[in-house]
């Protein structure tokens, strides 16, 4: 087992190197560089810049160097824990991300909990009452949640919350708390704003989770051991939760791999629409403005979390389900 973990950890190194190359190439793929998009943005507001100044900035940012040299500067910096410099914010990348990571984790955690709380009971009900009115009804609602574009739902809810409850539009707290230290009122204000993104991001996830859990459970419910349990007189709820549900949870553990990066990145588009102070909008705007070190380092960070997440979920799966064995790799 130890050897397995070690092997997995070693494989991560070439994986990350390849990912970093891919990330860098893809970010560099669109024509132009950060300064081109910077000029374009200024121009759209009517501003102009002296071309001499742009040339000077290009030198300052090192954008006049060949691409491979830029890559090595960035990659070797990351090895030393320096994630590079954001052109857009004129700050080191770590400082740009700093605060936002906390809030992102908070939004994502609440969303995950919301999704679970909603999805599990519904899926259990749907599976045990297959093809009943309740099953169809809940499935219908779930599909609506999945089919409605998130951003549309977000805008409608924002408007309603503003008109009926007087919640300020967008953001994670009332603007007046933005520059204040944390206190009870601020916390309440955050909760007032938090439910919209949580519900919006949660609805689509919920539907997907309901369907998968329902399908997995249905596979299990007709297996002989369930019938045996029933024959032995195990109470229905215990019978459901103790065996079939545990077996049906494999997909759920496998999901943890993707959960880790999504905790940090959040739902980007919804975050942009709701103007949440999370990392999603930063990533999107960095990609748009070709703020390459910011975007690149952030994507690298996500890639790292994904790899670690997958490893963790693999290990968890092996621990949870005795049927899963490391046969393939261990025999080599």
């Amino acid at each position, binding site marked *: 087992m130890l050897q397995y973990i070690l092997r997995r950890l070693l494989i991560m190194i070439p994986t990350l190197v390849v990912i970093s190359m891919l990330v860098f190439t893809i970010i560099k793929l*669109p*024509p*132009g560089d950060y300064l*081109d*998009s910077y*000029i*374009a*943005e200024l*121009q*759209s*507001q*009517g*501003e*102009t810049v*002296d*071309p*001499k*100044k742009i*040339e*000077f900035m290009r*030198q*300052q940012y*090192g954008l006049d160097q060949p691409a491979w040299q830029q890559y090595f500067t960035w990659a070797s910096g990351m090895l030393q824990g*320096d994630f590079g*410099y954001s052109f*857009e*914010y*004129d*700050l*080191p990348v770590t*400082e*740009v991300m*700093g*605060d936002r990571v906390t809030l992102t984790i908070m939004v994502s955690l609440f969303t995950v909990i919301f999704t679970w709380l909603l999805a599990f009971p519904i899926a259990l009900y749907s599976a045990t009452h297959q093809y009943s009115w309740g099953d169809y009804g809940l499935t219908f609602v779930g599909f609506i949640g999945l089919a409605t574009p998130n951003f549309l739902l977000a*805008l409608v809810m*924002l*408007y309603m919350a*503003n*008109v009926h409850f007087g919640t*300020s*539009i*967008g*953001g994670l707290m009332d*603007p007046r708390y*933005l*520059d204040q230290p944390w206190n009870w009122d601020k916390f309440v204000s955050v909760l007032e704003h938090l439910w919209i993104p949580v519900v919006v991001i949660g609805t689509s996830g919920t539907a997907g989770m309901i369907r998968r859990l329902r399908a997995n459970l249905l596979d299990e419910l007709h297996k002989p051991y369930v019938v045996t349990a029933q024959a032995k007189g195990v109470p229905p709820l215990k019978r459901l939760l103790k065996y079939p549900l545990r077996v049906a949870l494999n997909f759920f553990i496998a999901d943890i791999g993707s959960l880790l990066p999504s905790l940090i990145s959040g739902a980007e588009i919804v975050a*942009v*629409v*709701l*103007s949440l*102070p999370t990392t999603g*909008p930063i990533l999107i*705007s960095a990609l748009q403005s*070709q703020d390459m070190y910011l975007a690149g380092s952030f994507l690298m960070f996500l890639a790292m979390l994904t790899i670690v997440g997958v490893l963790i979920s693999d290990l968890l799966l092996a621990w949870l389900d005795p049927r899963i064995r490391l046969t393939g790799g261990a025999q080599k």
Partner: protein
Amino acid sequence: MNHSPFTRISLTMSALPSAGRHRLLCADRLVRLRRLLSAVFAVLVTTLLMLSAQTSLAATGDFQETPSLQEAVSKGELPPVAQRLPDQPLVVATEGTPGGRLTTLMAKAKDTRIMTVFGYARLVGYNKDLELVPDILQKVDVEEGRIFTLHMRPGMRWSDGEPFTTEDFRFWWEDVANNQDLSPFGLPSVLLVKGKGPQFEVLNQYTVRYSWDEPNPDFLPALAAPSPTYIYLPFHYLKKFHPRYLSAEKMEALIKKKKKRNWMGVFLKYGHPYKQDNPDLPSLQPWVLRTEAPAERFLFVRNPYYHRVDSQGHQLPYIDEVMLDLASSSLIPAKTGAGESDLQARYLQMDNYTFLKEAEHRNNNRVLLWHSGTGSQVTLYPNMNCQDEEWRKLLQNRDFRRALSLGVNRHEINQAIYFGLGIEGGDSLLPDSPLYRARYRNAWAEYDPAQANRLLDGLGLTHRDSRNLRLLPDGRPMELIVHTTGEFTEETDVLALIKDTWQQLGILIHARPSEREVFRNRVFSGEACMSVFTGLPNALAHADMSPAQFAPTAQDQLQWPNWGKYYETSGGGEPPRLASAQQLLDLFRQWRHTDDASEQMQIWQEMQQIYSNEVFSIGTVAGILQPVVVNRHLHNVPEHGYFNWDPQAFFGVYRMDQFWLDPDTPAVVPASTDQNSSADNSDSKAGKPASSEGEP
């Protein structure tokens, strides 16, 4: 009328640039005589005004302490107002109550620079009537349009209380502009006349002089621009980041600490006054930044050393704090409608109007309608540098461009998309500009498909295919891709209407949206033969403003990127291949080398004549309305104005430092109009001699 004696003095001085030491050397005696007379006149007027200034200063003599600063003053943390102001502050004819906080919404942290634009404290700046008047400077003497003597306000201070002197000008000139590392590409273009920079002299602690060999009419407008050319920087603060004033090892440590490539990176990070991103950088603007980035809201607080006072002796700005809240740009209209902004125009569009108006009664807002100041909202640019040879030949042909323009039904566009509220016509100046002539706007701008077809037939484009499209000489059907940035739905709507009417000419267009950078690069490379963007950036120009927008002078002019690049980079790109474009460029060069107002005026007229006659860009509808949402309690915001970048600087020339909040009484509409119009009148009265006598 005891207001603004200083303004008037300064106005007169700048109005008579030819005053001062004229030697009788040049040949033209008449001009000399006129200048001599005006010089004598100027001295007389100045003396008189000086006297009246003295008396009115005595009358309004004592300044009133700003309530929000009272505590700091009584504790001794801040000197009293009389000591904070320069010896002769700029007195503004307005009244109001100081205090309060104003919130406005912006989309990005980089938007903090908008406070330099809104604040609009400039060495010289435009007033509402777009005349150049001294602002931070007490006066400017201009001789022969080439020797500029800048007189600062003695006793003026930076926002941190340090004196603002000629040392700050010297620092910029010696250690920034002429520093090989910081400015490897030399002086800013506006400081170069035929490639040569000015001679810089410090005359005394409060006077500097820039002299060129030939007139430089771009100099003062560049200082007044929304994004001004800074010719001064706070020496006492920035010397901490400059190797000339810092030992090598300290500099080394600093670079390392700030994680920059070299010392220039450090210097530019901390010494960029336009960006307003460094809370420690001393400023001369009405409000200075308090918040360190990154943040979701940026607080700007009043500059206690600001150089303007109102007629009651209150130091400006009236508003204590300005708050910039960040929100994604698509949410800004919704947030504004929810009453979360006290003053908002940026990121609002005409199609938000109904929603904002509906929200007006729910919140404490009112929605004003200003105008955009561009020559035409949606404008088609035929690219003279198009790669496709057949198309390039046609697009460079005047008759072809005229036919295209005649084939646009501007009335229909105006009615269908702009509620009939716009001004129809070609891409030209607006009626509010003194240079406006109806004939330029109407040139080739009436909808006349019959004549357009005749013109096209005359070009030999008579063959048609089965779809009734005309054929190019090489046999391809005339299908044209029109590139757009795809950011404004209105562009697509207008294009749909144009597509219908051009089809009657036998030309089919397809709109193709692309990302802004890609869009620009396609136009620059000539891959895009036609593009859509907004029209002339400054359609409210005066003769003393640069007519660069009418001539191929910059690469980002979408009708001739390569010809523009030729001028901009002195030799890149290619020289204009059309006689008319070359003529425009020659006229522009001529404008740059004259200081004579009537000649400037004549050049402007000639350039407009050529430009509109040649139809270098195809305008549709101008004077589009811009919603401006204003808190009901915010006074002094004009009912009508132009929300435009250059030269208005958005709220800049309307002087945001004079806006004030009264929590008790809402700004009653007629009253504030009166106030503004009276201020307008006094300004223009004071300014009249300027326009009649000619500007530097």
